[in-house]
């Protein structure tokens, strides 16, 4: 058939494209990660990788295992629902190795972060003008951070 002879170059072109497509499919099969599509259109293994990232905040449950006395003090006062690391910072390293000194937070900057008076804060939230209220005396001179109400020699409410 002359049509095949005269259109032969088109079949050659088709052959080149077919070879290209097959090469693509082979490469694709080789390079797409195995877990791709496990749960959806993404690499399923990525979920476990993200879940395995290191912790920096240990969580108050962990702190309370050792520091149950502080937890009891705290539970009795206004800071009952303020978790340890809200003030002490991330301490997973200390939890993993208690010999690492967690250090003490600086009350000069710590307390006013929450308690400096501002009209933007909810009215019911305890706020003070620190200068006027204490005149430079550190907050923990009068207030015990773990139970801040001043009653019966810095004890519970």
């Amino acid at each position, binding site marked *: 058939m002359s*049509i095949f002879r005269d259109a032969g*170059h088109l079949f050659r072109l088709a052959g080149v494209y077919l070879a290209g497509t097959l090469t*693509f499919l082979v490469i694709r099969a080789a390079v797409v990660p195995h877990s791709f599509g496990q749960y959806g259109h993404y690499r399923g293994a990525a979920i476990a990788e993200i879940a395995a990232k290191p912790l920096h905040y240990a969580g108050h449950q962990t702190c309370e295992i050792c520091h149950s006395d502080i937890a009891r003090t705290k539970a009795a006062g206004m800071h009952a629902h303020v978790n340890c690391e809200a003030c002490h910072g991330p301490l997973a390293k200390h939890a993993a190795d208690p010999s690492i000194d967690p250090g003490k937070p600086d009350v000069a900057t710590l307390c006013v972060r929450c308690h400096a008076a501002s009209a933007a804060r909810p009215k019911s939230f305890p706020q003070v003008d620190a200068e006027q209220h204490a005149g430079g005396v550190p907050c923990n001179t009068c207030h015990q951070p773990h139970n801040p109400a001043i009653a019966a020699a810095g004890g519970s409410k």
Partner: protein
Amino acid sequence: MPGVEGYMYPNEVSLYWSVLIVLYPYITGLVAGAFILASLERVFRVEAVKPTYRLALLTALAFLIVAPLPLQLHLGHPERSLEMYMTPHRTSAMAMFGFVYLWYLMAVLTVEIWLDYRADIVALSQTTRGWRRLFYKVLTLGSSNVSERALHIDERVGWFVTLIGIPSAFLLHGYVGFIFGSIKANPWWSSPLMPVVFIFSAMVSGIAAVMLIYMATSRLRSQPIDMKCVDTIAQYMLYTFIIDFSLEMLDLIHRIYEADESFRSLDFMVHTKLWFSQVILQICLGTLVPIVLLGLVQAAKLTAASRKRIYAVSGSLALIGIFAMRWNVVIGGQLFSKSFLGYTTYKMALATREGLLVSVGLTILPLFILAALVKLLPPWTKEQPDAEALAVTGD
């Protein structure tokens, strides 16, 4: 924060899409426009534009080769870009790019050029020496059949490929518009008109580019410019320009009249940060002036010399105007906060990966590729020495 007025969400302060993403729809648009100009001759039998047919195809190919480069350069991890082919996400407009691009490059443009040039390639493979001979030999795919019947088959298949090519060109650029138009988070982009506006502005820029390249190459080759050809091209440019401008104004009027929650913010942006690039460059200099100039040619009887000048000026202004349009879409869409409460500033770097120098380089690069393509596959072989004879011998 420097360059920020009002309130931006903190992650919005720096722009994530740079001037390279302006270039990308610009260059893709030139491809689509050039191809549609080429198809005028092939499918719609507009014989007058024949002198630019092959040149338009090569221009489209040169720009298409460069089109993905700005995208590649802007990626955080260019080495992972092939994932678009390996695991394309069906719901992503951007994932379509790889496939539309590949389809357009391999199934449309390359095939059409190959079929059209096949006789020349076979002839060149027999007359040249050395590496060029090898190059053309490879291009023949081992078939030197240029019998009348074979060429007739090529002609028919080529016609069919062009026919597919027109919607493909629309698809190629329409989807670029869709990439922006489908982002509901961004009111400056989110519009169903976006793909249509992109297509028509692409046609304007592509037609202008081929017209300018044709006029420039004619001068370089000391050949007379076929006035009938450029007159026709300019006419088509005017028509598409009017459609493009009407669509853009429709979009604008619609936004102004609807005045939704984003309007005040966007309106302020257009009157300040985008005033020069949008109102002066895009609308006045880049659209109204060339439309008036091209309209003048239609209305008045002007000499060939002044028409040439008008075409050169309006073509250049159109290219600048369409670039400004891409700029206003891509950069403008990131200058305002999605909270509608503030604005940031885009500072183009000079010599970084996404800087000015790279952008200029990428804009010029297609012209070098085109020069190489013209050397390898001369588009003028079919042309008669006397350009005026074309209308008679034009097949």
